[in-house]
């Protein structure tokens, strides 16, 4: 099935097999936040280190399916070293990418708008997920947890 290959692109399987930034930072000082997907039991633990408005380090722990784990791994690579502002922007862009289908399932005040795929780099590999609405929650789990971590850290 073509769709299935769209979902399980090589890069996703690669991040699943060899997750980047795996582990937990000592907390404190790091901000540690847990995320759940009650639908499938996936758990993500995000620990982040913020220095002078920059996300200087991030680690990902937890367990789950290839989509949730690779998405979190891709995310960690994408945001590490970025300014908090840029991290927020990346989160927004990614969530817009996922929104197309999520908006079918859940009310949302944000209008889905075209996403600049190029700006996403490797993250664009996750766009196959939107054809599988049930998996969107897997793909966004790490991202929502990161957003929550930033909020809890007051950033």
């Amino acid at each position, binding site marked *: 099935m073509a769709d299935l290959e769209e979902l399980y692109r090589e890069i996703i399987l690669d991040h699943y097999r060899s997750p980047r930034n795996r582990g937990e930072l000592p907390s404190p000082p790091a901000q540690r936040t847990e995320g*759940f997907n*009650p*639908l*499938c039991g996936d758990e993500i633990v995000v620990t982040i280190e913020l220095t002078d408005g920059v996300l200087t380090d991030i680690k990902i722990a937890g367990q789950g399916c290839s989509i949730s784990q690779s998405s979190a791994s891709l995310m960690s690579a994408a945001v590490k070293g970025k300014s908090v502002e840029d991290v927020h922007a990346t989160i927004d862009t990614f969530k817009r990418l996922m929104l197309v289908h999520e908006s079918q*399932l*859940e*009310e949302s005040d944000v209008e889905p708008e075209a996403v600049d795929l190029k700006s996403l780099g490797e993250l664009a590999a996750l766009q196959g997920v939107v054809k599988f*609405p*049930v*998996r969107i929650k897997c793909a966004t789990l790490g991202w929502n947890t990161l957003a929550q971590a930033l909020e809890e850290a007051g950033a």
Partner: protein
Amino acid sequence: MIDEARVRAQFPLLKRELHGKPIVYLDSAASSLQPQRVLDAMTNYYEHSHANVHRGVYGTAEEATNLYEGARRAVGSLIGAKHSPQEIVFTKNTTESINLFVGSWGGANLGPGDVVVLSIMEHHANIVPWLVLQERLGFEIRWIQIDAQGELILEDLDTVLAGAKVLSITAMSNVLGTINPIAELAQAAHRHGAIIHVDGAQSVPHLSVDVVDLDIDLMSFSSHKMLGPTGIGVLWARRELLTSMPPFLTGGGMILDVRTDGFIPADGPARFEAGTPPIAEAVGLAEAARFLEELGLEEVRAHEEALTAYALDRLFEAFGDDLVVHGPRNPDRRGGVISFTLGDVHAHDIAQILDSHAVCVRPGHHCAKPLMRHLGVPATARASFGIYNTQADADALVEALRDATKLFA
């Protein structure tokens, strides 16, 4: 304008006969009939898309989940909800919706010294749960009374609401037909810092209801009274309010995590939907909501109001002072629910004799015993209209009643 023939043709049950005569269904206040498309939607669901919702990854599970979650939108749209996916909780019936509200919100917010305001025209569903909780938590219940026309006495409303935490009241009486001024009551409740829960079991199927315009906080209603299937009801609650309410029934589907020593509840409507929900029923209810929206509740109301006016005129014409109709005489203050007593003939006997004419009315206390005590009658016969009823049905009622008075003359 409602096209009577077109509407009636869509309700299969209207084709049946009772005792060899075409059925005259005048019991929609108890339960409405279902149009073919509602039945078809459910059958189609079972034949093509049935699966348990949530957690499923395969095609039919996704379809079932989308149909189930989508039903929140269809139902929310009918009542003007702003955030249906986060505000529409599916229950078993109005009664469970009210139990949920009373048990969850009431259990967490009420105690000695608090005041709950109800009206004397409430259905047992909006009385007994409060009595049970009162027994446990010891708050005060105040009752808004009614006048001789069966309308709420609102002169002393500010006294009744003083210090109240919640006003829980029906939008339309299932006995008197009285349409209560919900927007005005909501304003008054809020002025006193109380929230307002509306029993919409009788209003949602017959009036144009907009929860935002009315500015209410919660509303309960039943599918089976609004052309939908049995087995499903709705609790609508403002998003912020729902978020603050603790779980009620518990089990699978309403949790984030469970350990042997505790659990974390889910957010949103899921928190209140423990176990496998009424999936096919949600599909059917959504179709019923769409059907009603297409007809237009303004049209529905116009049709039913005209029919009620006609029926009241014919009834008084035929039986004069022998007939006592409880509730407002003025058709624009009431819905199409006509509760009456006729001379010495007991309601039960009336219903029995009417049945022999294939005219279906309901005798009894209509689950409103405090109101019946207030009215001083043990039982009434109740004829109630739905969108599929016509003047011919009202005529059939009058004719059948003539027979009853003859037998008991």
